[in-house]
């Protein structure tokens, strides 16, 4: 009797023999996916038996990792209560956590008997009565190595799963054991002929390949995993959007991240006391401390001043206040990509022109699932004669169609620098109607100071929070994942096309 085996199969056979004839796949010290393939081949030849047991392992989710660093909401609540002598009103505690976390902290706190609530004088107070948070130790153990599901207390496990703090990874544990025949082959009592796996230059040149047995590949076996060099899935999506807009005839424009309020607000006819200009809606620059140098634009600046104050020659009555140059030259971080459109329009564009910008904007938001301190906006402007609100909606419908949305509808809206203003909604298969763009025709108070012949020349403009669309396309539910720090996620992420 003679058995033909590949070099790998022989290696596995030898390895098993040296371990007393039986071993777990993971303990073999061989490449796992290769060894599994060899084992399957050996089983077909009756040399080994394979037993599989499915095991469920726990690992930390991204949120779990974050809570481990920042503290679980209920732990932070305990901390807050301790600082306050163990008792505080909910109203006092609420601002220290986000709305969602606050609710979780209260719910978990009561469930675990850490706090109780008490009403007095129309206010509700939380009172600290315990400090034991069993999730903490599990999260800490998980941060160093995965655990088997059975190693964690059932109630704690359920809680961690419900809160999305852990992920369950199923792994199959494979045990391989030599059969009698296998044992004989391994011990040389049955003759083993080596099959050729990979063809080599040597085998070909020497003609040896004609004499040797070439192993047939098991095409059902998984190949080794390759991680290719690869675009970031979000950047890849942004490139797709860029391609759509270029295809529609739009030219890409840019503006600086550190921007003068003049370009971000004043030229857009946003009054200097507009709430969007206050500290909680745009980032003010502390350093460099010198304001912007707008000397090059003095005649434009003067027209903008007059337009704000009394409407100048725009036919508007203006905002009726004393405009300040010092506010206009203050530095901020670009809070809307409209600044890029404004700079480009003010530089004197030919009519017609179509421009777009895809860039980051900055707002002082507390980061959470739906808010980021910096996010991408996608902005488009069509500057042409005889445009009207129907054309605006036409461009929006076309852009939506290119992005893969078939149905679109429009709703009136208010933006300080467009009139009429329109919000565009698209129909998503599962999410229903979602708002995708704010848009409108730029106001005369903006276009006339720039030298355009309003109303003959009109500018259709829209802005899209493109990150939200990307999240839908990429199947993400936390905006922070667009800047994911997880290499494994990036390696596995599918690219949309």
């Amino acid at each position, binding site marked *: 009797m003679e058995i033909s085996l590949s070099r790998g199969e022989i290696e596995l056979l030898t390895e098993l023999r040296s371990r007393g004839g039986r071993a777990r796949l993971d303990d073999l010290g061989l490449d796992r996916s290769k060894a599994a393939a060899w084992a399957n081949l050996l089983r077909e030849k009756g040399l080994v038996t394979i037993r599989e047991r499915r095991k469920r392992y726990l690992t930390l989710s991204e949120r779990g990792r974050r809570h481990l660093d920042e503290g679980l909401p209920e732990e932070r609540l305990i901390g807050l209560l301790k600082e306050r002598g163990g008792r505080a009103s909910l109203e006092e505690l609420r601002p220290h956590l986000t709305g969602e976390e606050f609710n979780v902290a209260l719910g978990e706190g009561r469930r675990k008997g850490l706090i109780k609530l008490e009403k007095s004088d129309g206010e509700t107070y939380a009172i600290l009565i315990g400090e034991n948070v069993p999730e903490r130790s599990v999260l800490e153990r998980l941060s160093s190595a995965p655990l088997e599901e059975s190693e964690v207390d059932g109630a704690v496990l359920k809680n961690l799963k419900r809160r999305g703090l852990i992920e369950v990874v199923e792994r199959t544990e494979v045990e391989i054991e030599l059969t009698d025949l296998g044992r004989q082959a391994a011990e040389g009592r049955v003759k083993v002929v080596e099959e050729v796996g990979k063809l080599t230059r040597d085998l070909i040149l020497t003609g040896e390949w004609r004499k040797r047995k070439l192993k047939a590949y098991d095409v059902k076996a998984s190949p080794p995993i390759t*991680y290719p*060099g*690869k*675009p*970031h899935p979000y*950047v890849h999506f942004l*490139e797709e959007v*860029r391609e759509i807009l*270029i295809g529609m005839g*739009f*030219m890409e424009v*840019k503006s*600086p*991240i*550190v*921007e003068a309020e003049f370009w971000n607000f004043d030229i857009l006819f946003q009054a200097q*006391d507009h709430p969007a200009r206050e*500290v909680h809606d745009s980032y*003010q*620059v*502390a*350093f*460099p401390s010198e304001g*912007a140098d707008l000397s090059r634009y003095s005649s434009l600046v003067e027209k903008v001043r007059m337009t704000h104050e009394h*409407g100048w020659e725009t036919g*508007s009555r203006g*905002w009726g*206040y004393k405009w300040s140059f010092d506010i206009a030259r203050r*530095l901020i971080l670009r809070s809307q990509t409209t600044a890029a459109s404004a700079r480009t329009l003010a530089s004197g564009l030919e009519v017609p022109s*179509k421009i777009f910008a895809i860039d980051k904007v*900055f707002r*002082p*938001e*507390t*980061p959470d699932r739906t808010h980021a301190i*910096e996010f991408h906006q996608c902005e488009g402007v*069509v500057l*042409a004669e005889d*445009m*009207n*609100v*129907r*054309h*605006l*909606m*036409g461009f929006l419908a076309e852009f939506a169609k290119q992005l893969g949305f078939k149905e679109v509808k*429009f*709703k009136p809206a*208010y933006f300080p620098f467009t009139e*009429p*203003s*329109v919000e565009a909604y698209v129909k998503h298969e599962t999410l229903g109607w979602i708002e995708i763009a704010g848009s409108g*025709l730029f106001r005369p*108070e903006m276009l006339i100071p720039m030298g355009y012949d309003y*109303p003959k020349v009109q500018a259709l403009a829209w802005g899209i929070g493109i990150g939200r669309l990307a999240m839908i396309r990429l199947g993400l539910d936390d905006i922070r994942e*667009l*800047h994911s720090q*997880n*290499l494994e996620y*990036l390696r596995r992420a599918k690219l949309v096309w």
Partner: protein
Amino acid sequence: MPVITVNMREFFRILGEELSEEELSSLLEYTKVNLESYDQEEGEMEFEVTADRMDLVTMEGLVRMIKGLTERELGIPNYPMRRKAFQVRVTERVEKVRPYVVAALVKGVDLTTEESLISLIEAQEKIHDTLGRKRKRVSIGLHDFSKVVPPITYDARPADEVAFVPLGEYAEMTAQEVLEQTEKGREYAHLIENPENLVPLILDSRDEVLSLPPIINSELTRLTPGVRDLFIDVTGTDLRAISYTLEIIVSALGERGGEIHTLEVIYPDMTLETPEPEPSEMFVSEDFIRRMVGISMSSEEIIHQLRRARLDASSDGSVVKVKIPGYRADFLHPVDVAEEVAITYGLNSLGYELPLNVMTVGKRHPREKISSLVRTLMIGLGYQEVLNYIMTSRAFLFSSVGREERPVVEVANPVSENYSVLRDSLIPGLLHFLAANTHAKYPQRVFEVGDVVVVDESYETRARDERRLAAAYADYSVGFEDIYSHLKALTDNSGLELELEPHHERPFLEGRCAKVIVNGKESGLIGEIDPEVLLKLGITVPVALFEIRLPIPEK
């Protein structure tokens, strides 16, 4: 955008009909208002209104709008009005404390239910928070007129020389005590700080304090359900904003059947009649309206739509005369009239059209062109692209990765220390990324193409964006040559000339670092990272890295 909560029963009572959620939503498609919730169990609805339509923060304003859309009523409502009921005198010394006041009297208002009063007070608070900029610019006082003996004086007096019972208290307090001891006093006292310690006061002819704006009213004129006659004062720093606010409140009371009485407000140097008895007028060419909405509408249609929007309009066949009530502050320019026609007609009824005659050439920005090329090459070299934040902290950029401190753009109002400066290099982001992924399989090759911001006083906005590329290679055994070979592949394949100059800079290892010269210009750094830095970050394999500024051709 303000969200207002409305009691359903009260809302439908004054509207005169009940609307289902679907009926209400589809009417609101013709407005800028969104229906946020319709909760029959709680008997409440929530509406989100836009900042240009503060007249809609009152339940009555919403009702007025809906009556127009359903055509139960058209044009400007005809609230009964009488002129110049009495005078409000403004003294000279109040000017430097809180300069402006306007006021009105409304008689015979239907405020019989608890809900009607609550809704009025909620509208007042919404206006304080938005238009009123937390009472700084605008604050409203509502008074039971039966307790008031006109005429009225708006004066400023020393805080310790005047006393009254503030709303919600039982005992008389001096104004000084009100500022220091009441919750509202502590919250808003800073709005009227002045060196002479004067407080602004609304006083009646008996010298009774009606209110201490913008802080608190007097208990004397407290509103109770069933109140019929209201005296309203609005004070602030911006005459246009307080006049607008008065119009909003008065018209809401008009909608509840009130008879509006204007008052004469006599300043040392001017006399006003408030609220403004006549609507303002705007003349708009019909052709301009048709040009903006994009369909040919008849004169009659234009006028009908404006009347549905609760404006008065008439036309001589080419120019529309539009009358605009004082509570509509959103008409600055004829284009605002055109918008009113478009949205009341219905955006979705207008239909849309893609203009095919706007021929222009699409083009990628030069900065994105080269970015796209280097991304392609880096991916070809086996690198995974990553994306990091531009906003970060000083510690992230410098001490944590062993870089030497240098000036970076800093914001004045960070939400957290973690996001308080702008990155001046992509290197820290890549190192932190590697540190966060020490459990993932090696080799790890990652790159980022992105903007950094460099302080440059000579630039218009004192700081310049630079588009850079950085790439890091981490493996059990990796070194200078490996990353150099990749950089060389990158420059060779994109037609750039590459030279290295010996150099030392942290966090690179001495003797294993160089300046990168691209096309003769200093463009970045390349080298192996100091293991001291790696260990601090928890990285236990060698890391070789480069960063270069991408050459962007002038347009």
